[in-house]
């Protein structure tokens, strides 16, 4: 008996969860609160992260065995050393910059100024992927398939990158980028079409499409796209020089044009969403599909278009990694950009500017983590914990408000954030 009653009342449906996430992702916020909450969330995350570092450090335990004071001192030492390394790895070491400038050695100067630029390099795929998720959120769609779309985009741009020879760079590079966008768009189009025509929920379908994409690219790499002289290793041929996204400086600085392309994409998404009729339609469909339908908007068309565009942006994230950095495709292409970008879009409030800022934050943290790992042996995973904490606090601003005793937002703000249910309810 008990089971039956349970069955009739599913605890929470996917639709409810995704509606809630969508609601908080596109809530209207004042400029100030949009910055204060993530800022304080970062701070709180760093403080809790410090606790993690202390609790997981063997040195601290042995220091506490000597005396309480030396335990505290060691804790402080380890945490400050770690975060200093994180900072220097992500932004740079001012002392080293000055020293390098005085010495005048070109390589030393490039090395000293590299950390900041490298952070932007790491941020670039986050920007593309974050925009992809944000665009979906705005249209009321939860695109979890960014990771898969990224893989397909990468494969498409790799193929165009190595198979076409003899084109001038001015044509070849944009063409390879376009291939990446089209590949991703196609992979986003399928769940979009399924949603519009059959009502199949895009959360399920995009997750499934991810698995198809992973296995499909693996097959491509072990078969049709294998580098001929690699002895059957799953690596694609190296792309032509003309397909490369140019890097601005000499080794080891990897800062490249892709960052500006990403900023351009963010500008384009902003313009599309907020300055065009199509963007208005899309946002209306996202905010209240019934009202949109009543107003005569074509929901099916908007859904398909939004998923395809979202996929195109995800595809660009993959193409960017191949054409600017990796130069060939291999397994292990992404460190989970597609999944991190969901968090990123939430923190960025699904606004292109917010997404860019959140992407730079994520990229900076991840880049700094490398140096932290070299100097203090703290695994890079601590950054994942930090990202998760920040996200948690951003998603639940009440925690931050009560910790820092901020005033609750005005009631009108909450009302303005009305989001209707969607998906055939």
């Amino acid at each position, binding site marked *: 008996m008990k089971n039956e009653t349970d069955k009739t009342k599913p605890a929470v449906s996917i639709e409810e969860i995704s509606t809630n996430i969508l609601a908080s992702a596109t809530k209207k916020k004042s400029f100030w609160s949009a910055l204060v909450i993530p800022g304080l969330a970062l*701070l709180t995350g760093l403080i809790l992260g410090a606790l993690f570092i202390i609790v997981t450090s063997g040195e601290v335990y042995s220091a506490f065995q000597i005396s309480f004071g030396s335990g505290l001192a060691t804790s402080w030492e380890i945490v*400050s050393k770690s975060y*200093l390394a994180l*900072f220097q790895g992500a932004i740079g*070491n*001012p*002392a*080293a910059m000055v*020293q390098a400038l005085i010495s005048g050695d070109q390589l030393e100067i490039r*090395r000293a100024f*590299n950390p900041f630029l*490298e952070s932007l390099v*790491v941020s670039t795929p986050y920007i593309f992927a974050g925009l992809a998720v944000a665009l979906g959120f705005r249209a009321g769609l939860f695109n979890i398939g960014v990771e898969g779309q990224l893989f397909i985009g990468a494969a498409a741009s790799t193929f165009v990158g190595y198979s076409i020879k003899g084109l001038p760079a001015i044509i070849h590079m944009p063409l390879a980028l376009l291939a990446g966008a089209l590949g991703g768009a196609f992979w986003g189009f399928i769940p979009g079409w399924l949603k519009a025509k059959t009502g199949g929920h895009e959360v399920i379908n995009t997750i499934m499409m991810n698995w198809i994409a992973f*296995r499909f690219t*693996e097959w491509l790499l*072990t078969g049709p796209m294998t580098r001929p002289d*690699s*002895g*059957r*290793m*799953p*690596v694609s041929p*190296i792309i032509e020089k003309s397909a490369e996204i140019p890097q601005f400086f000499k*080794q*080891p600085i*990897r800062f490249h044009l892709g960052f500006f392309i990403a900023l351009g994409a963010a500008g384009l998404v902003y313009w599309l969403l907020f300055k065009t009729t199509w963007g208005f339609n899309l946002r209306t469909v996202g905010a209240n599909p019934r009202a949109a339908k009543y107003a005569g908007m074509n929901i099916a068309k908007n859904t398909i278009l939004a998923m395809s565009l979202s996929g195109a942006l995800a595809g660009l994230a993959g193409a960017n*990694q191949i054409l600017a*950095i*990796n*130069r*060939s495709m*291999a*397994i*292990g*292409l*992404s*460190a*989970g950009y597609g999944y991190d970008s969901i968090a990123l879009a939430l923190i960025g409030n699904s606004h292109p500017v917010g997404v860019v800022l959140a992407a730079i934050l994520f990229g900076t943290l991840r*880049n700094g983590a*490398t*140096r932290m*790992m*070299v100097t203090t*042996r703290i*695994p*890079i995973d601590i950054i994942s914990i930090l990202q998760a904490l920040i996200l948690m606090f951003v998603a639940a601003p009440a925690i931050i408000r009560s910790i*820092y*005793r*901020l005033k609750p937002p005005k009631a009108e703000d909450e009302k303005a954030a009305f989001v209707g249910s969607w998906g055939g309810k």
Partner: protein
Amino acid sequence: MSKKFLTFLAILIAASLALSACKPAAAPAETKFKACQVTDTGGIDDKSFNATAWKGVEDAVKDLGIEGKYLESQEVADYEKNLNTFIEDKCDIIITVGFLLGDGTKASAEANPDFKYSIVDYSYDPVIPNVVGQIFQTDEAAFMAGYLAASLTKTGKVGTFGGLPIPTVTIFMDGFARGVAYYNEQKGTSVEVLGWDINNPDGGLFTMSFDDQTKGKEFGTNLMDEGADIIMPVAGPVGLGTAAAVAERGNAYIIGVDSDWAVTNPDYSKITLTSVMKKMDVTTFNVIKSAKDGTFKGGNIVGNLANSGVDLAPYHDLESMVTSDLKAELDAVRAKLLDGTIKLSDAFKIK
């Protein structure tokens, strides 16, 4: 209250940053020899080549008094970044692991000719003067494992599967299957190998994963359902899933790969017949030692049966299963492998 607290926090953080930034760049008090490893995306605890190479670094830390560091890569784009980080860190030797790092190591080595590199499980042709490639004639040891398995199977069937169809994996499977075939030829038996056919190297059984232990369990169960009672999984930690399946079902055994599984996974020592060891820790240790002694020379080092770079592990808990007659036969096989009487596949032959 909240404002004061905030201001206090802000000052504290600003001060600590400023103070630590002002600290004079720590004088290079100690110049310990540094060996630095960049892992591939498998991570440092992959129970496969990253972990084994790292064991070599740790052995060097213990025996040679050097400093060991590692950086884990989460994606392909990290390889170049991690290599650059170690260049800046002025590492005395940089160890990279696996073919995925092949391109990155080459580029880094050519851009930084003053640095020394060694890459595990990969080689360059032509050789790069500041890189030592570590490669292994693994099929020699796997051949002996195949012979052993064929003589101990009760069902007349043995099995193997790999992680991905790449040469560093299939060399295990091919050697294993040839060992079985040799046993059949000698004894007139017809022991069957599931998962690899020496006449059809494009086939074979693969999980397409190096980290999904559930798949290892599935594959192990399927192979046992097909009648195999000795299984050699060549897929890193995926094989632990197979070991779990075998331990559950009973009446079957596994053969470990890369390291001595009876030692590295003592939970399964009761079912681990032996392991096909690929001693990447030893070769890595030797390369570090040569770099420290100043005898480092670029090129390739090949681990084979002759120099114990690859070998069969001891039988440990299952010693009693291997009769002294069988041990003598295995010694004869080893001798024939060493003097070249037994020929292995040309496709995997390292020149």
